């Protein structure tokens, strides 16, 4: 292998990047998405690029493979991997580098592995392409690789198709395929974004182990917790340029640029309930809503048995899907009370029944046993016709709420659709404008299509839509999972402020424990359809009593104290 020979003689860094500029289009429509980016990675070193979507971090990574995309114009004073000049390499040379010298792990293995090919074929491809390995040799190597990335029963998994593997196993298989030919540099582009905390922790340990075996690692992430877990150095990108860089600890302490501090601030970990994330100011105390004292006063205390009536109350609800041996007990006997002005956080891994519980609370799924009361009135076990007039009292904000409406609708129509019936058109217009103002959006956005908005704006539209119906309780199902950290922080601050203003009750479903900790008064930890632990947030997080809670907490990547 010529690649090997060169690497043994070259003493420079594994990756040399100097003055990388990437633009698309030509003439007046030419846009530059990466501007004069320079950094290097040594063998056995992990450098992370952090930044929000559109900051150019992924394009930077793809340029290293010569895969910046069709029509990309890539210029660099030097762009070299292991001594090979990528910027001047032709198609054949580039193909020799890809997979052999540089490996790519992209996010979401569900779509990054070919669904029509067996795992073994996908994982073994680099060996076929770079080592001329025979089918038999590849099969043996694939099983070793799968075993190495921690996939149990590799002989079975190798013969399966990607859709038969869980998200975590798929991501491991994707890593196996990236490291099959033993590349010296690995590029991991958001490798854990779609994964549970526990699975994420496993993947990060695996990446850390590869780095310790002298592989250079370029990690792309918007999650500072992930970065803290593996990176040695961090490069902060914004609008295509590097704004800050330094050792991981220094960057997480705030770095040397205002934008870095903003990024670090957006992380909800360790920020107490009731403090705005972006400003770090305490939120104004709640206005007293007629007839009830906001639950806020009981915050921090073990006020499980509250005064007053719960707005949403579930007793012994259970739901099983399928039957016989295929039966899945999604929810198995859960009691839950949500009071006005309080947030209940529901945490647990995917498949734990969180979403089914949310659907039962919203009366979208009928429980097999148990009852749900909304505002003291029956909410489950009744006909939809009897529910319809009260539907507006219970709202939903999901990961990308406004994409679940007709894409041809304007923002204004999306919101107006949720308004109570029988309003005059003037009143409707006024309410839509108010709803947009409530979520800090420009009322002029009402004529736009949700598709033309940014992710954060769309999520605000989703919240405005939920609010327009004047709900008493809102189920927040992963409300910020699809958003960049600073945008997510803004949305969380908004939700918090709205709750204070209106005495809203929230059921917050999230796999992100730091979001739940920051937002919730009480938490319920779900495992296999059962609440294994519940209590005031701080009590559960600081002294978890159940083994599963302890394990969940151990897997949360933490930022070192600033």
């Amino acid at each position, binding site marked *: 292998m010529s690649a090997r020979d060169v690497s043994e003689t070259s003493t420079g860094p594994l990756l040399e990047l100097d003055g990388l500029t990437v633009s698309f289009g030509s003439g007046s429509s030419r846009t530059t998405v990466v501007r004069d980016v320079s950094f290097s990675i040594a063998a056995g070193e992990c450098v992370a690029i952090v930044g929000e979507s559109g900051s150019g971090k992924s394009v930077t990574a793809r340029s290293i493979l010569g895969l910046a995309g069709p029509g990309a114009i890539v210029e660099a004073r030097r762009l070299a991997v292991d001594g090979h000049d990528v910027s001047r390499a032709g198609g054949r040379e580039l193909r020799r580098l890809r997979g052999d010298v540089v490996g790519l792990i992209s996010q979401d293995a569900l779509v990054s592995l*070919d669904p029509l090919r067996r795992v073994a074929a996908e994982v073994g491809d680099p060996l076929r392409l770079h080592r001329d390995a025979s089918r038999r040799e590849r099969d043996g190597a694939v099983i070793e690789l799968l075993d190495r990335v921690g996939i149990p029963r590799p002989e079975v998994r190798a013969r399966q198709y990607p859709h038969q593997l869980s998200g975590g196993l798929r991501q491991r298989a994707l890593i196996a*395929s990236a490291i099959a030919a033993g590349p010296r540099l690995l590029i991991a582009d958001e490798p854990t974004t779609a994964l549970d905390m526990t699975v994420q922790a496993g993947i990060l340990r695996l990446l850390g182990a590869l780095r310790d075996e002298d592989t250079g690692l370029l990690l792309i992430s918007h999650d500072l917790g992930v970065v803290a877990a593996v990176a040695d150095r961090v490069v902060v990108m914004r609008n295509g340029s590097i704004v800050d860089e330094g050792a991981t600890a220094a960057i997480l302490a705030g770095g040397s640029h205002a934008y870095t501090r903003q990024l670090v601030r957006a992380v909800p970990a360790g920020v107490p309930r009731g403090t705005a994330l972006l400003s770090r100011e305490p939120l104004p105390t709640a206005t007293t809503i007629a007839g009830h004292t906001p639950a806020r006063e009981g915050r921090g205390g073990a006020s499980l048995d509250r005064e007053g009536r719960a707005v949403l109350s579930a007793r012994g609800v259970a739901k099983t899907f399928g039957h016989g041996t295929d039966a899945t007990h999604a929810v198995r006997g859960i009691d839950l009370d949500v009071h006005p002005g309080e947030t209940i956080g529901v945490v647990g891994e995917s498949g734990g029944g969180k979403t089914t519980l949310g659907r039962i609370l919203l009366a979208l799924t009928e429980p097999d046993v148990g009852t749900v009361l909304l505002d003291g009135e029956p909410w489950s076990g009744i006909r939809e016709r009897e529910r319809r007039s009260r539907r507006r009292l219970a709202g939903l904000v999901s990961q990308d709420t406004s994409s679940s409406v007709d894409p041809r609708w304007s923002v204004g129509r999306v919101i107006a659709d949720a308004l109570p019936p029988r309003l005059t058109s003037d009143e409707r217009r006024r309410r839509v404008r108010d709803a947009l103002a409530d979520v800090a959006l420009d009322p002029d956005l009402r004529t736009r299509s949700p598709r033309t908005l940014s992710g954060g704006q769309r999520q605000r539209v989703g919240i405005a839509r939920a609010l327009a119906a004047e709900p008493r309780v809102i189920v927040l199902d992963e409300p910020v999972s699809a958003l960049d950290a600073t945008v997510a922080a803004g949305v969380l601050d908004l939700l918090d402020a709205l709750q204070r203003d209106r005495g809203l009750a929230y059921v917050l479903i999230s796999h992100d424990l730091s979001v739940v900790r920051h937002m919730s008064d009480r938490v319920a930890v779900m495992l296999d359809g059962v609440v294994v632990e519940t209590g005031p947030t701080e009590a559960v997080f600081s002294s978890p009593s159940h083994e599963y809670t302890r394990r969940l907490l151990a897997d949360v990547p933490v930022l070192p104290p600033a």
Partner: protein
Amino acid sequence: MHGTRARSVARWAARSALRAAVVLWASATLVFFITRLVPGDPAEAALGGPGSQASEEALAAVRERFGFDQPLIVQYGMAMLALLRLDLGTSYSLRQPVAQILGDTVPGTVILAVLALLLAWVLALALTLAQSRGSRVGAAVGDTVEIVASAVPHFWLGTILIAVFSTGLSWFPPVSTGTPAGLVLPVVTLAIPIAGFLAHVMRGSLDEALRSPFAVSALARGETETGLRSRHALRHAALPALGLSAWAFGYLVGGAVVVETIFARPGLGRSLLQAVTVRDVPVVTGVVLVSALVYVVLTIVTDALTRLVDPRIATEVR
């Protein structure tokens, strides 16, 4: 895992058989009532149509013999029972058992349609691969070729092909006899419109596959552009076209009516045309049922092929 797979296949087979039975029964019912809805006396039709000037006694005898004097529902029951016995009746015009007429004509048409479908697939794959290099001009040319090809009527295409390759160049006979050379022009005539249509569908899904994240993963492993197409994208491209092939076959049998007439080729299409013209109800019924049967069998075959190519369907738990 193996048990689940076997069970899933068994369940699929049972479901397919049931569906096939329902489709055949529905086709038989439809054709029975539609032929009765046509105005005119069925007894007269049985004796050769209004032109035959049949006597009143002859008509009565025929009514008695075929049960036309019975209530419609009884006639329907009798027709269904006859079908269950695989008795298709006797042709009014040819005085031959319908089964024998079908036996003579079906193989020719099926060979014609199968060859046309295979040729259409080959042409579509070639067109797809040739046009999928991502250039805008290439895509525009591809679009034009595919749309023109799928819009060309069979009778026009057949006539042009005869004019050029038989009359002009004398490469192939203008009349399709039993020889392989005689098959070429009819098969090409039938295949070209379907090829354009299949290529259009394939190219759409091929482009989609080439833009998907797994294509980036493959390229990042060092896969060549050709390898990306042959090992990854082509399978994705073939899936929707595979699903449409059963439908395409139905279209081909319909097109065979025209093509067999142009090339004076004996077959199902021509039998149907003649039978409809003289209101030969038993033959029409037989032809429709055989077409439905072929269509059902092909649906099952393409379904099985789809399950073979797409593992996500094969292991789907229902």
